[in-house]
């Protein structure tokens, strides 16, 4: 399906996309995980993750991207991200109040420091990334059905 010349853009775009899309996804995950150490965080990283899938969809056509993440999986993952963030918030009740950071803080400048912030970053990243991908998927599917 990937090498089908009828769908998607030209061969040059497809080759370059095959080389770069993994790096873009990896960069998004890096930005999400290092949100408490360097600029970035859940919002920016989530949008970069969504952009990697949008890149795949623009280069290879709709079917390749949908084979990676279908629409149902996207909406389910978005709900899971929202529930995870709420769970992190409710977890604070174990220590006494909403959104209390009760996990171990660790040493500053370590990757696994700052307790619940890294969990919140991951959940927001999943939520934003998959949600924006679902928006774009809905737009593309609409255009396809109208053409037929």
């Amino acid at each position, binding site marked *: 399906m990937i090498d089908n010349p009828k769908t998607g853009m030209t061969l040059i775009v497809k080759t370059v996309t095959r080389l770069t899309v993994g790096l873009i996804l990896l960069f998004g995950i890096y930005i999400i995980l290092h949100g408490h150490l360097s600029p970035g*965080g859940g*919002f920016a990283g989530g*949008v970069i993750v969504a952009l990697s899938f949008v890149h795949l969809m623009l280069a290879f056509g709709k079917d390749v991207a949908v084979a990676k993440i279908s629409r149902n999986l996207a909406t389910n993952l978005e709900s899971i991200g929202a529930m995870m963030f709420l769970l992190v918030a409710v977890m604070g009740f174990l220590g006494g109040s909403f959104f209390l950071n009760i996990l171990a803080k660790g040493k*500053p*400048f370590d990757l696994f420091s700052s307790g619940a912030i890294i969990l919140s970053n991951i959940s927001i990243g999943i939520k934003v990334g998959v949600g*924006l991908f679902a*928006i774009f998927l*809905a*737009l593309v599917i*609409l255009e396809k059905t109208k053409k037929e």
Partner: protein
Amino acid sequence: MSLYLLCLVLFCIGLYGVLRKRNLVKIIIGLGIIEYSLNLFFVLLGYKFHGRAPIDAQDQIILNMVDPLPQALVLTSIVIGLGITALVISIAIRIYEKYGTFDITKIKRLRG
């Protein structure tokens, strides 16, 4: 002070686009420009002369940091702006399908 005034001019251009233009996409673009100018205004309020970005460094103590609170508020506002733009664009696409035009004065009749 002159920076604040330039920011207000940007806001006024967006307001002009929203109120005066009759194309739906132009109205959405005007909303986007208003959002940009507001974000910039918030961040301008928090800037401090010779300040550093609000991130601690490993081996030094940074005393002069810019205000991180407007930045935190604007960070959420940017993503909300993207959601709003996408929602309004999808509604505009539906309107185009139904009426065949982006002109808001032609969208008067209720149809099915």
